[in-house]
């Protein structure tokens, strides 16, 4: 089953094989969860968002036309879900701040080691514009190839390389200059 491609799994799921969808979830759950962690404030929100992504996939795969890779579809759905969560979180933080008179961020303050890692990742990602964030997350943090990144972001490989180069230049101001070897990723 592990060698079955994503498209074949979805075809089996659409044919009525529920186990194919479970296998699809197990294959992508870690990556979707990590990407959700990189975009959301807390790990709890990331779990909920990742579940929401797969629920939407369960309903939306009936309209899937197999033009793109299923992970591309998942990534787009994840972006939408994370944007909704962030809007809601900002609204709740503003409301909490207004009600309590304190910074609402305290209620979302990370305390575990995983949350500290997330905060560091958020600081790195927050240095970059949106498109460069996507490229850095997929190419550097997820370890995807330039081709896979381009397919996921629905752009050309040259565009991915250009965004990556700009992102590396921006991150050099944050990390030690000598630490980042651009040739490793570009």
């Amino acid at each position, binding site marked *: 089953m592990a060698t079955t491609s994503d498209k074949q799994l979805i075809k089996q799921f659409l044919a009525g094989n529920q186990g194919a*969808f*479970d296998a699809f*979830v*197990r294959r992508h*759950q*870690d990556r*979707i*969860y*990590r990407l959700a*962690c*990189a975009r959301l404030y807390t790990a709890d929100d990331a*779990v909920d968002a*990742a*579940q929401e992504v*797969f*629920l939407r996939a*369960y*309903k939306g795969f009936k309209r899937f036309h197999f033009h793109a890779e299923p992970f591309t579809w998942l990534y787009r759905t994840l972006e939408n879900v994370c944007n909704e969560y962030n809007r809601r979180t900002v609204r709740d933080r503003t409301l909490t701040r207004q009600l309590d008179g304190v910074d609402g961020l305290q209620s979302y303050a990370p305390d575990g080691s*995983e949350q500290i*890692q997330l905060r*560091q*990742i958020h600081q*790195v990602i927050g240095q970059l514009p949106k498109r460069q964030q996507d490229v850095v997350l997929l190419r*550097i*943090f*997820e*370890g995807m190839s330039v081709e896979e990144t381009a397919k996921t972001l629905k752009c050309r490989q040259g565009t991915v390389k250009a965004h990556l180069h700009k992102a590396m230049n921006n*991150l050099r101001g*944050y*990390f*030690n200059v000598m*630490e*980042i070897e651009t040739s490793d990723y570009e």
Partner: protein
Amino acid sequence: MNDDKDTNQRPPLRSLVKQYQEIKAPLGFAERVAAQVKDKAASPAWFTSPWFTSPWLYAASFAVVAMVAVTVVLQMRETEPELQIAQPDKSTQNQNPPVESAPSGDARPKPEEIRIAKHQQPPPPQPDRAKQNLPAYQPDNQQTAGGGYSNLAVLSDVSDWLALEESIAVPDFSDLPPLSEIDGLSDAT
């Protein structure tokens, strides 16, 4: 100095990437998704269908309600002017009060009352009636003050005089061309 210290506290990118890649989904994540999927599948399909949750459905419902409301208002506005036209004016109403007075709660007269009020209005004066009221011709007064006889002397009755008046039809010269366009007439002048 502070910047250098801060930079030293920052984890290198590679270690950060390694830590990131060690993050795994919580245990039982796939089972929770499967359970939620089953719950979704158990719920009625129409409730979760995109049509039911689509904002277009609500927009269409609002449009239908608005159309019905506009239609009702237009129909009410169409019926109102008819009543106002059919309502007799105050002067006529004073001279010819309606047979049945309308109930105090409803200011508009009923259609039957309007018809009755219309019939009770005085008819316009007829020109023939004025002609018929002319004084009858007296044959004794045939001789005028000048001593001669007028042409009316041959008419013995008013009805004859009216018949003569009707027989003398005034021709309509409006269709004739102007004098300048009639051949020969301009030469003669």
